[in-house]
């Protein structure tokens, strides 16, 4: 499984990654910076330290579990892919993403969800993502997920003074395929503290998986209850007026 590592200490904010992404994915070139339907990645300036924003390609993506038609899918190669041909436009993926990543082409009459796809075509050819290839500072690195984790810890341990002892993405949302390392100040302040560290799809699956049993139990008990009630009603009407219940129950006056 492939992954990306972003090292804020190496990034100089040249935005070559953004340009490469825009070009490679044929996104419009006149869009303002900042994550949008036209910008699948962006650099966030935190006092001259830069943080790359993009789809985190979660191991257990909330968006993919949310999508009613399976338009979003986690692939074995790493990328979380979006299939426009299935999408109905409910935007549950946008609501579900703990990182607020998916964007929507609101102004289109045939709108679509828009986010980083991790260059699946390039990956197939054995190439790195466009952003990683474009980065001359070795701030965005691409490779096998295990290698990227190892590289992250290597850089941290080799220069512990300039790095927070944390690889962002190892635990967040149950683990991702995009990791971030950097100086302590950035790592402590730049991220949304509300991003949970749990596997989110598990939360809904815990409920969904109980549905068949629940329906079976509810259905049978309703049928059973109704049978008992009807039988008691019949017996009662037998008591009152002999055996007459041919026309069913009497109306309440």
């Amino acid at each position, binding site marked *: 499984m492939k992954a990306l590592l972003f090292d804020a200490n190496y990034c100089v904010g040249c935005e070559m990654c953004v340009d490469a992404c825009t070009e490679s994915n044929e996104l419009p070139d006149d869009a303002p910076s900042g994550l*949008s*339907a036209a910008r699948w990645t962006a650099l966030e300036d935190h006092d001259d330290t830069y943080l790359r924003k993009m789809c985190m390609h979660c191991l257990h993506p*909330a968006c*993919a*579990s*949310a*999508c*009613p*038609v*399976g*338009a979003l899918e986690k692939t074995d190669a790493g990328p979380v892919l979006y299939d426009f041909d*299935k*999408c*109905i*436009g*409910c*935007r*549950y993926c*946008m*609501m*579900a993403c*703990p990182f607020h990543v998916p*964007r*929507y082409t*609101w*102004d*289109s*009459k*045939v*709108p*679509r969800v828009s986010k980083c796809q991790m260059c699946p075509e390039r990956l197939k050819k054995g190439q790195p993502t466009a952003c990683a290839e474009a980065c001359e500072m070795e701030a965005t690195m691409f490779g096998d997920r295990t290698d990227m984790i190892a590289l992250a810890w290597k850089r941290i341990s080799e220069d512990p003074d300039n790095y927070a002892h944390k690889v962002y993405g190892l635990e967040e949302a149950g683990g991702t395929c995009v990791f971030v390392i950097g100086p302590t100040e950035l790592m402590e302040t730049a991220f*949304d503290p*509300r*991003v*949970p560290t*749990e596997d*989110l*799809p598990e*939360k*809904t*699956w815990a*409920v*969904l998986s109980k*549905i068949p049993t*629940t*329906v079976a139990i*509810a*259905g049978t008990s*309703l*049928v059973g*209850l*109704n049978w008992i*009630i*009807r039988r008691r*009603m019949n017996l009662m009407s037998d008591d009152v007026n002999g055996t007459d219940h041919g*026309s*069913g*129950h009497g*109306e*309440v006056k």
Partner: protein
Amino acid sequence: MSGSNEKKGLAAQILQPWRILAIVILILGAIGVYRRFALGLGASTNLNDTFPWGLWISFDVLCGVGLAGGGFTLSAIVYIFRLEKYKPLARPAVMTAFIGYLLVIGGLLLDIGLPWRLWHPLVFHNHHSVMFEVALCVMAYTTVLAAEVSAMVFERLKKERAARIAHMFTLPLAIAAVCLSMLHQSSLGTVFLLMPGRLHELWYSPVLPFLYFISAIGVGLSMTIVESTLSARAFGRCIEAKVLQGVARMGVYVYLAYVALRFGDLAVRGQLHHVLDFDRASFFFLVEISLGFVIPMMLFVMPKIRRNTRWLYHAAQLAVFGFIVNRMNMGITGFEVVEGVGYTPSWEEVSVTLSLVTVGVIMFNLAGRFLPVFEVEAEDEIAAEVFAARQREHVGAGGQLPRGAMPAVTPDDPVGRTS
């Protein structure tokens, strides 16, 4: 009796401005619909990347489905538990639910980006998606409701065999209705389980599925009281006070269960202190929990209130209002306070939503006029005859406007006065 007639004459006069308002709403709504399709979601709504779900999801879908909860609740009470005295309420509740679900689907067609793909969940399955389950259940339940309503249509058309066949399916349909509703009413709550970091602690809860299901039953009962009272006024139908009192009594238990679970859950999660934060979140929480659940429960528990038709009606209205606030909080406030962004619906969103409500009222009215919604059951021959007589009168009066014939129904209605 004459007093009530006078009241109805007055009501008919008051209705005139309502009719004008309805027309204005529908025109604005039509423009809103046009703009939504001609310009796209971006230009016609205030939705954006930070606020992808707005009024159409919170009101049209979350409230719509919940407010239609009377359909399965009354189906269960009457057809499964056989509490015969509530039978007069079953058909109006089922009709309300059917109309409600049609409107929910209408709202969804506007809200989803690619409405011509609404059928996709039938072909592309994602068993891990709550939304997939909701989509299938809503489709299936709307079909069940259509089948339940078909009995009324067959009776009206005097297709006796078809009507008899439809009646044979009453029980299985009721069981299907309860099972399907249990699933998707609760699943609308499950939808939010995926957003622990994004929804405020006062609303995010692991027991959301239960809270959603219980509150749907509660608001279903309250809606039944509201809708019965209103149709009693509009159709000159006499509501049996005792029946509605019984509904209110059931409501007490349902609301008690809800309030206990809601506060119990907050306490267990250690979030109870947020209730008294007196910020935006706590204000809206207090509004929903008091108006929608605690106060109606306290009012319903008082025999004095229950016996007073007017007070009972107002208590139920309060419950419905509070419920709407609850669902809107789930869809809007709970996210606003966390993300620190504001969302105000555009006029298109508002006018379309109001139009859906208006269309619902008109459809219910038409159903009440042309279908045996208020008849207990067609087997009752006397009722059928009286109904036929009333029907002739309706058709004779048949105004062009949807609400037009309403006053004409009332003056010498033979049914209205028999209790």
